[in-house]
Every structure is written in structure tokens, then in C-alpha cells.
């Protein structure tokens, strides 16, 4: 994940990677079955979190947290100095942030965490030294997953949420569809997408797969098991990413993606028209997710 590309402003993004998603769930057993039997992730036996899953070389990228009130996403920060600088900036701009306790850090498998709330109310953990695993990833089924790839977040305060992501955290806007905003932190087109909404939460959690074959095999695999396909198979014209979005447990949406483009260092954010073909160039229409239905979105 080392980048040879250096952005002009800011000089270097302090965000290293999207490292995990913690989902608050009521019925973890059902969510667990979905994670392994459908998504194909590998369960991680451990003493702290019974519902922990791997998708790549990292210790975990998905946790079903029975005690949590709302979902959160984990973002790795480059180093202590950056985290301290960010903590200061957050305080000055009135964002809520609290240092995680030792137990909270242990549950997240990180050495330090700053638990931040964006203007919408989404929880974002800014973490140091998230754990990797020495053992290679061994999936529970042949879904071709290559790793946690991105997340879609709802935003009801786009201006302030963008201030958090860009000015304070150093992510950069790569493209927009209407007010839907794609944010990059590394060479890839995006890792986080903010969707205008009237509430907080995740629009989807996206796992990358190794090929178009894997994507389409997962599509038919889900269809055969009567998993509701909410969007796709489709292709985002802004990022080149092909996707299938599935209805997961407790209204969470999981997405398989393949073909996410890299952006050039001199890329300027493009503005796409807010219409269905800007979200899927193949012509798929999203059902059930208002944020992905341009006729309904703001």
C-alpha cells in the first residue's frame, strides 16, 4: 500500500487506510452466517470479539459488535504527531472526539484510537497501529475477496462533513455526482463516498474481488440463495468500478467491487449530472436505497 505519488496539497495524506468496519447488530448469529456463508469472509476466533472477520492480510476488517449503538469505521492515521494534530484541529472546529479507553482499543485491535463524530453523527475511529495477521487469509468460500475496499456514508451536513474529511483529515475530493462526493486517500479513486441523506449511517460496505468473474459469480451465488440484490450488477462511470450490492443483515448493505480505477496525480474533481446513468453506466437501477436513487436523492 505504499504510494509513490505525492499530492501537492496537502503534501501527504495523513490517512493511511480504511482498516475496519464495526457494525452494531441485534442478532449476531444471523449476521455471522451472512458474513461467512454469503460474503465468504473468514471468521477470526479470539477472546474479545466473537463476531470478527478477515478479508485480507489484516487481523480483521469487519466486526459485528453487539454492544455498540451505531456503526463505526476505522481509519488508520500515519503517526502519533498526525493524530495529535488532528485531535487539536477537531477540538477547534467543534467536532466531538474522545480518546478510546484501553478496553475500547483492545476491542478494536489497535494501539490507540480517537473516536470522532462527524457533523452528521457518523462515528469514525482514527486509529494507530491496527493489527495485521501473520497467517494468510483463507476465505470460507471461493468468493475471490481481495480486501475491504471502501465505504459509503450518509451525510446530512455535507459541508461540515467535507470539512472534516478534507481540511482536517486531508482526504481529497476526486469526483462528484450531484452532491454525492467521492473521497480519495491513496492512489485509488475513492475509499469513502458521502451520500446526501436525511440521517446518519452507512450506505454500503464494499469488498473488492479479484476479477469480473468473481463479481458475477457472487451475483449469481447471491441470487440463487434469494439474497436481495439492491443494485447491479452495475458499473460506476466515475470510478470504473463494477459492483453488486446485496441486502445484508439488519438493513446493512454489502457490496462486491472490481475494477476501481486509480487516479492520476493531476486529476481534478469532475462534476457528473445527478441521474441514474452517473451511478451505473450499464443501466441498473437501485431499489430500496434512497441515496442511490437520483430521482429521490437531494
Amino acid at each position, binding site marked *: 500500500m505504499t504510494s509513490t505519488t505525492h499530492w501537492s496539497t496537502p503534501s501527504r495524506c495523513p490517512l493511511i487506510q480504511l482498516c475496519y468496519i464495526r457494525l452494531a447488530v441485534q442478532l449476531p448469529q444471523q449476521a455471522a452466517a451472512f458474513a461467512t456463508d454469503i460474503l465468504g469472509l473468514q471468521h477470526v476466533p479470539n477472546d474479545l470479539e466473537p463476531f470478527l472477520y478477515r478479508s485480507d492480510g489484516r487481523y480483521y476488517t469487519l466486526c459485528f459488535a453487539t454492544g455498540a449503538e451505531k456503526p463505526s469505521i476505522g481509519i488508520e492515521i500515519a503517526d502519533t504527531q498526525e493524530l495529535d494534530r488532528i485531535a487539536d484541529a477537531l477540538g477547534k472546529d467543534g467536532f466531538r472526539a474522545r480518546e478510546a479507553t484501553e478496553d475500547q482499543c483492545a476491542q478494536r485491535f489497535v494501539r490507540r484510537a480517537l473516536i470522532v463524530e462527524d457533523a452528521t453523527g457518523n462515528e469514525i475511529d482514527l486509529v494507530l497501529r491496527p493489527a495485521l495477521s501473520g497467517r494468510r487469509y483463507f476465505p470460507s468460500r471461493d468468493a475471490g475477496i481481495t480486501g475491504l475496499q471502501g465505504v459509503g456514508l450518509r451525510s446530512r451536513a455535507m459541508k461540515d462533513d467535507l470539512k472534516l474529511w478534507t481540511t482536517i483529515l486531508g482526504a481529497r475530493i476526486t469526483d462528484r455526482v450531484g452532491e454525492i462526493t467521492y473521497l480519495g486517500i491513496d492512489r485509488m479513486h475513492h475509499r469513502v463516498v458521502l451520500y446526501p441523506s436525511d440521517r446518519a449511517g452507512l450506505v454500503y460496505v464494499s469488498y473488492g474481488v479479484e476479477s469480473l468473474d468473481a463479481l458475477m459469480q457472487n451475483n*449469481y451465488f447471491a441470487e440463487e440463495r434469494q439474497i436481495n440484490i439492491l443494485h447491479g450488477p452495475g*458499473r460506476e462511470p466515475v470510478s470504473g468500478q463494477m459492483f453488486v450490492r446485496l441486502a445484508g443483515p439488519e438493513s446493512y448493505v454489502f457490496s462486491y467491487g472490481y475494477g476501481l480505477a486509480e487516479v492520476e496525480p493531476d486529476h481534478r474533481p469532475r462534476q457528473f449530472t445527478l441521474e441514474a446513468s452517473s451511478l451505473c453506466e*450499464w443501466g441498473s437501477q437501485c431499489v430500496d436505497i434512497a441515496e442511490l436513487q437520483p430521482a429521490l436523492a437531494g
Partner: protein
Amino acid sequence: MIELKDLSYVRFGTSNLEDAESFATKCLGLQVGEQSGKALYLRSDDRAHTLCYFEGDPTEQTVGFEVEDEARLNAAAATLDQLGHPVHAGTPSECGLRKVKAFIGFKDPTGNHIELVVRPERSGKRYFASRDAGITGFSHVGLFTTDPARDELFWTQVCNARVSDRIGDVALMRVNAIHHTIALAPGPRSGVHHVNHQVESNDDVLRSYYHLSGQRVPIVFGPGRHPTSGARFLYFRGPDGMVFEYSIGVDEIEDEETHRPRQFGFEPSSFCMWGSKRNW
């Protein structure tokens, strides 16, 4: 041996020429090359036509293959005659209807109408599609067979086709480097099983899936991927029940000398490696 150089055209009778034109232009996306009285000539590439609908019985289905020249056409006629296949030599007016210099017609062992043609016409005007389906050309046909082993022998022993792969006893055969030009399909009767056009990209296959679904065209198989040829595909139904296919990424057989046909089991995953189910 009869040396087939390439596929040339398909000719279909139809009871409703207007419906056929509407489907061919609005759904399939071909270009009307010429409409003369009771026949509609459709283009898919730089040839003057690759699909012809004519007023007639929909069971009248003919596939045309190009051979090198008239000497080889005459030799082919003699070969077929010797083997007991009645041969019809095309009259000048029949040649005109097919836009070829000369042709002969015969039936393969199943009873499929086959024509061998010489000098099929090309067009100086470039192909301009009626809709943005991304078609790059007419590429192969599926032919029904009542006896796959017998028909494989006909196409490979009497003609120059080579088996690229088999699914069960069903042969996918090539006449040039392209993985297959003739795909046999077991069935109770003769006729064309499907007509394939190649498209530019995988995106075109998926775009057409949504476009045709929106036009209420029955999708009968796919989007999917054949493990044999590697092609991503979409099959859908057109006028008179005929099935059309778009595909992209058909492998080429690079080494003609050393290629050995692979044997695939006769099971769904041999037809689609993605898991789509055939619905016809």
C-alpha cells in the same frame, strides 16, 4: 475436403417483416443495408449484409459459408454429390438475392440448409449501427443436430472444421483461428439454434442486458461467461423464437498444430462459469 473460409450470412423466413425490422434495428441494433420488396438486408460489419429476413416460412433458415473461388465451389458440389447430398446450384437471380457471385445449396446430415458462396459483397460505406449496441460483426451460429457425433464427422471430415472443445458430445468447431464458428446443439429438428454477434466490450454485454430487459425482450441466458471460449455472453429471443447472442472475448486458437480439444462435462457450469441459468 470442402474448405470453409468464413461464415457469410444467415437467411430467415418470417411471417412479419415489419416486426423483424423493428427487432433488428431497435433491439439487436443492426443497420438496414437494403430493403427490397419482400426482403430486408441487415449489416453488422463491413459486409453488404450478414442477416437477411425474407417474407416466408420461419422454418426456412439457411446459413451461408464462404469458399475460396468457383473452382473450389464446383469441387465441393462434386464431393457432396458423391456423398449423396443433393446439391442445388444457385441461379443468377438467387445469387442476386444473396449478393454473391455464385453459390450452391445442400443439407447437412441433420437437414440444416447450408449454402456455400463465392465472392459475397462488401460495402464501401462503413457500418453505422441503428443503436449503440457496440456490435463489431456477425461471428458464429449454433446449428441444431439430431446426432452430434455424426454431424461432427460431417463438418470435420467432409469440411475443414476442427473441434476446439466439446461439452459432453457436443462439438464447438472452428474454421479459422476463432474458437468456434459452428456450435452444434442437440435437438429434435434441424434449424439455427442461435446467431452470434460480437460486441466491443464487456460493458456492451451488460448495457444490452439492461437495455433489452427494459424493452421487454426475453433474456434466455446470461449475462454469463462460457468456460470453453472464455466469451462473456447474453442470449435473448427475437422474432419467430430465434435466439440471438452478443458476446465478447472469444479466445483464438493460437497453435493450430498442437491444440487438443478439451472435454467438458455436460452440465450447467460448462455452459456458464458465472452461474447464470439457461432458460430455453
